[in-house]
């Protein structure tokens, strides 16, 4: 009996772990996509950026949480800069925006390789581990889950309870009308892009201690974040969150049963099915059901 409980706990821990990964990896991408219909191909580079800034600051002696926050802020500022200089020219050309952000991503990755070299020493995972029966878990991964949930709650409050949120949602639904009512939509776009980039930076910072840093590390998040956004659709709260939960269960179950390869393949098969059945993802489907 206790063995079963431990078994269940272990599975739940795995699901939670994947859930946190997907929410953090995809949150920033989903916000930008939901707001502007733009697929930010440089998403992975913002993750990398957050990870490097965090690591650099921790190595310079700052505490990890401060490093993570600074990493997120730095990525956010870079995001706003990218939006102001390049992305804003492409709001009515979503496909070109995909191409142009891909170009930016190439420049960023290869530029980072040139400047930073190919790998950095990690700062080490803080906190210890706790044991249950045969298993032991890293406590830090529970912190990641807490951060992921915190991000979702934070986004809920931001979008539902603040003036920025009201303006952002209005802009999302009808930018021309929002503008005619005095909403500074350009600023909203820049801020949202910055927010998406900052969330990507946050993901990078949070995962930095557990990974080997390299300029190409962002690509390790990209496939998962695309999958989550496609399955979730254009809205973070009604899309990304449930999509992450469902995908986490599928991935954890496939990995537990058949190994890592099938965990990954399970994800990709799910995407293909969801796209055929719900072309606009979970949130699109929910929206149409409610309307």
């Amino acid at each position, binding site marked *: 009996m206790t063995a079963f409980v431990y078994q269940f706990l272990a599975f739940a821990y795995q699901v939670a772990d994947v859930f946190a990964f997907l929410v953090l990896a995809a949150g920033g991408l989903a916000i930008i996509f939901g707001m502007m219909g733009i697929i930010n191909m440089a998403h992975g580079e913002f993750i990398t950026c957050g990870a490097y800034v965090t690591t650099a600051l921790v190595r310079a002696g700052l505490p990890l949480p401060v490093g993570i926050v600074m990493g997120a802020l730095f990525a956010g500022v870079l995001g706003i800069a990218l939006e102001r200089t390049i992305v804003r020219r492409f709001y009515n050309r979503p496909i070109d925006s995909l191409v142009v952000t891909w170009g930016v991503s190439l420049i960023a990755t290869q530029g980072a390789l040139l400047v930073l070299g190919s790998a950095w020493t990690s700062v080490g995972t803080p906190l210890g581990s706790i044991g249950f029966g045969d298993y032991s878990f890293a406590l830090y991964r529970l912190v990641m889950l807490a951060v992921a949930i915190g991000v979702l709650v934070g986004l809920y409050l931001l979008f539902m309870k603040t*003036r920025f949120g*009201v*303006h952002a*949602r*209005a802009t999302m*639904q*009808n930018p*021309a*009308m*929002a*503008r*005619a*009512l*005095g*909403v*500074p*939509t350009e600023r909203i776009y820049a801020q949202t892009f910055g927010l998406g980039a900052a969330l990507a930076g946050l993901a990078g910072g949070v995962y930095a201690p557990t990974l080997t840093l390299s300029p190409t590390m962002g690509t390790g998040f990209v496939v998962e974040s695309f999958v989550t956004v496609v399955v979730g659709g254009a809205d973070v709260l009604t899309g990304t969150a449930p999509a992450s939960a469902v995908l986490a269960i599928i991935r954890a179950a496939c990995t537990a049963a058949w190994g890592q390869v099938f965990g990954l393949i399970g994800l990709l098969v799910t995407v293909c099915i969801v796209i055929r059945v719900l072309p606009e993802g979970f949130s699109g489907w929910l*929206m149409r059901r*409610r*309307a």
Partner: protein
Amino acid sequence: MPTETLLELADLCSGYGSTPVLQGIDLSVQRGEIVAVIGRNGVGKTTMMRCLIGQLRAWSGSIRFKGNEISSRPPEVRAHLGFGYIPQGREVFPRMTVEENLRVGEMIGARTDAKLYDIVYEFFPILAERRQQKAGTMSGGQQQQLAIGRAMIGNPGLLLLDEPSEGIQPSIVQDITRVMQRVNRELGTTILFVEQNLDVILALAHRCYVMDKGRIVAERSAEELQDREVAKRDLQI
């Protein structure tokens, strides 16, 4: 009647792509007036409204508001200056609640601190009742009331109404007409609207411009409009 000129258009030209629609509009609105622009379908009334709020660029000519040239200002700045825009087809934010829709309107007339929630809810009791309802699930008439309420929240100096009666039940049209008169009377809000519905025009307008082929071709006083024959001719030009 006050005599200060609030809005003045001079030789305004605009259009879509390379197709001209407005070919030199001249009109002016005094503070506190209710002015209608009437004309057949497709003469450029909605184009003029979109040009006024700034969704469409003015090719040439001028738009003066309180004496300042604003034709190169973006829409949000015009809203901050006090333009309250109620577009054709309402364009409420469907997936936001009534209250949230109203909150978006707060940016209008940015400098005024007092936001008129109480007054809007008093004028449109249905909005108070459905505060938490998603705007997309309401009827056309309710949405029109919401669109007007949304534009009024920030106490704008000038309301721009584009065909307020279009697609709405006659009884609600009458309600809306009455509210607009109260708004004008009690808040002193200036109103410029375009319309084809003669009843609404007669009930609301102090003065009237007749538009055809992108130009103002005539101006009518309220008295002249009472002559149904004149009005009908103007609408069918």
